[in-house]
């Protein structure tokens, strides 16, 4: 009896905390999405009108598609630049190439920095007049390559993607490295008797055996890419400047729900509808990805 009481006492507070601060807000956002809002006062029940508005009426439909397309691009670009390079770095460190001890730490260091610092740092790097990128280009006779990186639709989003990859590449590296270190020595010895080819080792042995790490890293990247907010907010501003070429669902939702001091009004209903759509999309696809990737994992 005392034991049961003890367990209850331990479980109830965190459960109440989660219910109050996680479950309740999510459910209320769901509820908000079905009402019309006059500024901040809740109006009448409108069913799916807010969802219809953000998906099918102009200008929202174009904005939604534009932001969503950018999230998709960010996901695939980071899959290559962050997870791909992360895997290669992990492999190099695991194989103990020269300098591995140093790189094991150096690669992970940026992950520790806060996104705000990284955002401002890259804004300075990419400054059109005094930024180290343009100054280096001019200094090495490549002045024609110097660009207003964050001011052009063609380069702004890619600048943010690269900043993000630099910041976070240490995370997949670490996860993959841990996965590689779990591979039993006997398997590696057996492989070594068969072949000397690194490619065969990677593709036939290491890659299948780090599948659990890949599941974690891919799923987290998926969730992160579609919730992307801090870095674009810091580097491009809430408007997805220039001309919405860096707009992503997170910024778009924030602007719609809370308004943008320098431009537009707020629409809680449409904002909540967007939040619900983002949430459902991420939940469904992340579940699907996890399910599919789990299937290919091998138990050692």
């Amino acid at each position, binding site marked *: 009896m005392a034991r049961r009481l003890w367990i209850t006492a331990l479980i109830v507070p965190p459960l109440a905390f989660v219910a109050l601060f996680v479950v309740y807000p999510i459910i209320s956002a769901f509820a908000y999405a079905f009402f019309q809002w*006059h500024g*901040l006062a809740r109006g009448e029940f409108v069913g799916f009108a807010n969802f219809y508005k953000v998906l099918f009426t102009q*200008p929202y439909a174009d904005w939604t598609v534009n932001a969503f397309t950018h999230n998709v691009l960010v996901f695939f670009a980071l899959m290559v630049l962050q997870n791909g390079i992360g895997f290669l770095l992990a492999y190099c460190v695991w194989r103990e190439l020269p300098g591995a001890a140093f790189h094991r730490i150096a690669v992970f260091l940026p992950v520790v920095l806060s996104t705000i610092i990284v955002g401002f740092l890259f804004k300075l790097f990419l400054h059109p*007049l005094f930024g180290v990128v343009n100054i280096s280009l001019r200094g090495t006779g490549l002045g024609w390559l110097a*660009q*207003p990186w964050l001011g052009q639709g063609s380069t702004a989003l890619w600048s943010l993607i690269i900043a993000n990859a630099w910041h976070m590449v240490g995370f997949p590296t670490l996860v993959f490295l841990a996965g590689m270190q779990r591979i039993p020595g006997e398997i590696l010895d057996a492989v070594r008797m068969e072949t000397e080819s690194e490619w065969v080792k990677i593709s036939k042995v290491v890659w299948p055996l780090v599948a659990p790490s890949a599941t974690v890293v891919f799923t987290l990247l998926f969730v992160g890419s579609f919730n992307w907010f801090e870095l674009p907010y810091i580097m491009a501003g809430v408007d997805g400047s*220039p001309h919405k070429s860096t707009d992503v669902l997170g910024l778009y939702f924030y602007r719609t729900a809370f*308004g*943008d001091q320098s*431009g537009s009004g707020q629409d809680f209903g449409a904002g909540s509808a967007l939040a619900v759509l983002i949430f459902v999309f991420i939940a469904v696809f992340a579940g699907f990805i996890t399910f599919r990737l789990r299937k290919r994992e091998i138990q050692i």
Partner: protein
Amino acid sequence: MKKLIMSTIVALGAVATALPAWAEELSFWSWRQEDKAQYEKFIKAFEAKNPGITVKFETFEATNYNTILSTALAGGSGPDLMFARAYGGLENVANAGYLLPLDKTNVPALEKFAPAAVAAETVRSSKITYAVPFASQTMLVIYNKDLFDKNGLKEPETYDDLVKASEKLKAAGVMPFGNGTATAWQNEVMVGGIASSLMGKGFYDDLMAGKADFTDKRYVEALTKLKDITKYFPDGFIGLDYASSQQLFASGMAGMFVGGSYEIANFKKQNPKMNMGIFAMPGMKAGDQKLVAQYFDGGYAVNAKTTKKDAALKFVNFLASQEFGQMFADDLNNISAVPGVAFKDALLGEVAELNKNSIPYIMLVHFRYGEPSGSVLLQGEIQKLFGGKATPEEVGKNLTTGLAAWYAPFKK
């Protein structure tokens, strides 16, 4: 027993001294973090005359202010008094019923305010005013007098004068303009500060009368000239953010800065030694009316649900008084909306003078009442124009068709 009586007396005494102060403490929220010291001074002046009322001034970061205020008001924990935005931003909060209507019965001084100022804090459909307007802002050109003198330059009288002056500064190794447009809202500022004189008052009147839209030749031509003048903006200005562009001018690296009158106080603080002048952008010919773009910034509003309504109204009446307007102009270097304020600062006086030839800052004043707002459209379209992704004609067309979604006169 004796101990109990003693402690009761002490406790009662503490409550008695604390109670009046606590009962009449008004909370006052603002987005002007940089003006905190000055507001505290204004509040002291008020408190000296109104014993028993204290005002607690709290500031929040400007970009998040709307969100914070909205959330607090919706949750019933808002302040007694607050800074409210103007135009569409005001309507968002006022239409939800969070603000106390103000009129000549509870704030008599409002009657003497300029109609344009009161209109900024009035909901269009109901004609109810919800805030005492505090300041107007003017989009104009600020220039570095020392750099102009050194290069033998005068305030330009025509567009060509401006081009020549820019050439001369450039030849002398000075950036003619310090502006950058990576920060979206700066693009709207460029249109207000540079294109107002070029499009002319006639265009504005026709636009309001429903006789013209943004595809009008006068507007498109003004945008063309705007794009041309960016030749004298810093290299890569489309990637230059707002803070960097301010620094270019404040540090004396650039000769001119297109911006709001709110920049003057800021530049003075950053570089007190700099000699500044201002002018309204000239038109194409010497006789063309030189126009600035003006709008009202925001106002002071009372929470409809405040429990200290009388005290709050007393304070708002103080904020509408000439005494306050004068302090506001003197200490904050801003154009107070209170009528009859004399400007000690020469530049401020000049701004007030320029305001006599002005058109409203069009998108903010007239086109922020629906989605997509004119400001959002214009900011994006001008970024396209400057980035070489759209022609002036396309910008005019996109603005008109975009606004047609909710602006009746543009619906065909």
